[in-house]
């Protein structure tokens, strides 16, 4: 399998605090990679640094053969490296449909029709303002926007955070469907059950460094690692 995204020695600061201290990871074509870690470990910071929303101080980022380190976020996005951010980044004063329309890019395998088929709820609410959506609906909208934007790699930051279980199921299914379409995904997720269901490989970040790395099967059986890095007690 060829490598879609390769990150080496990524270092990022917020002011003077050194948040990412040499992160390295890779995402291969067609797979879902999960990034785990406690609150504040630096997961979101990693995703933002990769896509250019934050400017890393150091590090190499290769995306589909291009060195994109230091690129501004919009150029990375034009290359198809799309982040669905933690806060979902919905434009609250734009309607759902406007949110979708401004995301539409030529050549995307998804059309507005596809989106409305995937997320019928969005079609029902397409005249509503983004700010009026529930958390789950906003999450759908945010993913939908990324799909319309012709993604070549999708980075999802806690996509099921704070969502009701049914919606979690729905989103998990959609994520798997996106994978079926051949889009690799880098996902940050606290919910181990979700990870286990979708991830092919797992990285764990601790204090800004990759502390652990394993494929799904190994990780599932590594009670100690989960206890140590995520504070998950195996009863």
């Amino acid at each position, binding site marked *: 399998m060829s490598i879609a995204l390769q990150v080496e020695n990524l270092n990022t600061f917020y002011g003077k605090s050194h948040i990412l201290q040499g992160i390295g990871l890779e995402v291969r074509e067609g797979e879902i990679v999960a990034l785990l870690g406690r609150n504040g470990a630096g997961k979101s910071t990693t995703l933002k640094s990769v*896509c250019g*929303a934050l400017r890393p101080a150091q590090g190499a980022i290769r995306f589909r053969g291009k060195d994109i380190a230091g690129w*501004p*976020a*919009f*150029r990375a*996005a*034009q290359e198809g490296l*799309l*982040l669905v*951010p933690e806060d979902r*980044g*919905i*434009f*609250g*004063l*734009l309607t759902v449909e*406007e*949110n979708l*329309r*401004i*995301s539409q*890019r030529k050549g995307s395998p998804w059309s507005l029709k596809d989106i409305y088929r995937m997320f019928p709820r969005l079609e029902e609410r397409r005249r509503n303002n983004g700010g009026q959506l529930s958390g789950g609906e906003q999450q759908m909208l945010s993913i939908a*926007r990324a799909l319309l*934007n012709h993604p070549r790699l999708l980075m999802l930051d806690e996509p099921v955070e704070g969502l009701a279980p049914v919606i979690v199921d729905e989103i998990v299914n959609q994520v798997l469907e996106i994978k079926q379409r051949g889009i690799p995904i880098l996902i940050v997720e606290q919910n181990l059950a979700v990870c286990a269901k979708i991830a092919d490989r797992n990285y764990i970040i601790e204090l800004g460094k990759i502390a652990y790395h394993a494929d799904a099967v190994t990780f599932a059986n590594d009670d100690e690692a989960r206890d140590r890095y995520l504070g998950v007690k195996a009863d």
Partner: protein
Amino acid sequence: MTYLFQIFNGIGIGMLYFLLAVGLSVIFGLLQFVNFAHGAFYLLGAYFTYDLVERGYSFWVAMPLAAIMVMALAALTEIVLLRRIYKLPHTFHILVTVGLALIIQEMTIIVWGPLGGNVPPPEGLNGVIIVGDFIYPEYRLFVIAFTAVLAVGLWWVLEGTRIGAIVRAGSESSENTALLGYNTLRINSAVFGLGAGLAGLAGALAAPIRGVEPFMGLEALGIAFVVVVIGGMGSYTGALLAGILVGVTQSVMASLWPEGARLMIYLGMALVIVAMPRGLLGRA
């Protein structure tokens, strides 16, 4: 009856005020940037029109051309200068744009001299309309109609088109707009150009009414601030409402208590901010 005329006349003044202020408002909404050079762009719009008309171009060529020239100049200024200071505190926005306004004003004097000039209303619009006791210049009528069409058009662009949606998205969060693949830097330049271009257009339209003189920019800035603050910064309809409100107040006060007109307008502005933090229609 006079009051009816005054109200109508006030709407006419107000439409120009709206045009003058809406650019300032749009710029503020998108860039969180207070532009003290807005009046200077108005000044340039008027002088470009004046210059072109003096050179023998028809007003109908001069007016749009002047607005486009101002737009281009403003966008260039944004790229060269202003984008470096967005992140600085307001103090420096004020400093830089006040400086810019001074430069433009003095350049105007150097190029066109300290005396003002006159721009005749375009052929065919230099008469008056008479309705009973009421007289109204055709050109002013044209300005009302033109601005109204422009207001609707602008509203449609901002609210109804994809480009408008992108601009509005950018004013909510430029970070998230960038995540969708938009070059927010370029959007900023374009919007600044648009906003300043609207001021230039207002200047171009005002030239046949007001004539041109090097200090008309200062006066325009004052009015634009009042309108934007009353209407709510960043609000499109707010600018329209407040522009008309200020225009009508001014016109009606001309009959009621003319010497207090300005006092009332500034008092009103202070009251509005104290009572309604965001202006009449400003959003949080």
